[in-house]
């Protein structure tokens, strides 16, 4: 729905302008519209609720700070915000790996347990655990596509890659998930 998207972006632009003029009600609307998505993205990338809240708060703070200089129509507010959040997540992941706090390539600890929960049809937990085992960029692309409902074009803008690269990332991610979830499900006799 490009028209609806354009209208939403224009509304966000107008809200940013109102906020910059001192309208706190505009800040509340922007927070309600944008913060949940940014937080969900950060949760997906960092797999740590407190760290995710820090990143989402920081991303929103950058929006508040840039508001007086925001140029309507140049960048989509949500795309700009998600790019900021993505960069903040990448920095934190790099730092964590650099200091050896997250030296293991993927958090596999909770995966077997979560996959076993398929027996009780806890698909959400199984999917989250399986997604946590994906490489960062595949996880991000898949999150934006299937949890945030972004188009491949928007994902390409946020991730600063080509649309073809997005298609490749999501394709590989979904095949990996299918391998982890569906095959396991059949192995558990639930297929």
């Amino acid at each position: 729905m490009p028209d609806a998207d354009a209208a939403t972006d224009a509304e966000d632009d107008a809200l940013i302008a109102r906020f910059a003029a001192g309208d706190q009600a505009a800040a509340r609307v922007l927070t309600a519209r944008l913060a949940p998505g940014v937080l969900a993205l950060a949760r997906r990338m960092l797999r740590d609720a407190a760290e995710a809240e820090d990143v989402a708060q920081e991303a929103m703070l950058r929006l508040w700070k840039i508001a007086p200089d925001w140029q309507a129509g140049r960048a989509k507010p949500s795309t700009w915000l998600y790019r900021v959040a993505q960069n903040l997540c990448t920095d934190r992941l790099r730092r964590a790996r650099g200091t050896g706090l997250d030296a293991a390539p993927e958090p596999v600890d909770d995966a077997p347990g979560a996959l076993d929960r398929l027996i009780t049809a806890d698909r959400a937990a199984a999917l989250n655990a399986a997604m946590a085992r994906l490489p960062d960029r595949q996880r991000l692309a898949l999150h934006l596509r299937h949890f945030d409902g972004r188009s491949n074009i928007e994902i390409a803008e946020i991730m600063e890659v080509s649309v073809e690269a997005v298609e490749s990332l999501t394709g590989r991610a979904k095949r990996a998930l299918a391998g982890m979830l569906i095959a396991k499900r059949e192995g558990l006799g639930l297929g």
Partner: protein
Amino acid sequence: MAHMTESEDTELEEFFAAARQAEPPPSPAFLGRVLADAADQGYGRAAPAPARSDVWARVRTALRSIGGMPGVAALAVCALFGLGLGYTGQSGLDAITVLGQELDAGFDDYAVGGFDTSELEG
């Protein structure tokens, strides 16, 4: 790797739908922090009028720049001297004016006495 089948795609979508439903909403505490950050920016807030103590601080700074109280005293003496000079200067100016008139009269006498106008007459 082989492409996914349609049934695999459908099944995977069921996992996504379940995970979307299970997504926890942002906590009120988190939303409160975000809004507090927004309020902290202070956009649209009028700049506060300078406090009385600020005015006096500015006066003290200005006085200090001219040498403090000795400087102020010197300035006051100069101002009084200037006023006095103004009054006394008025009488001095009158004397100069009178002297000027006398000189002017003397010049007229000289001019009349110096020329013999009868020589010009035919």
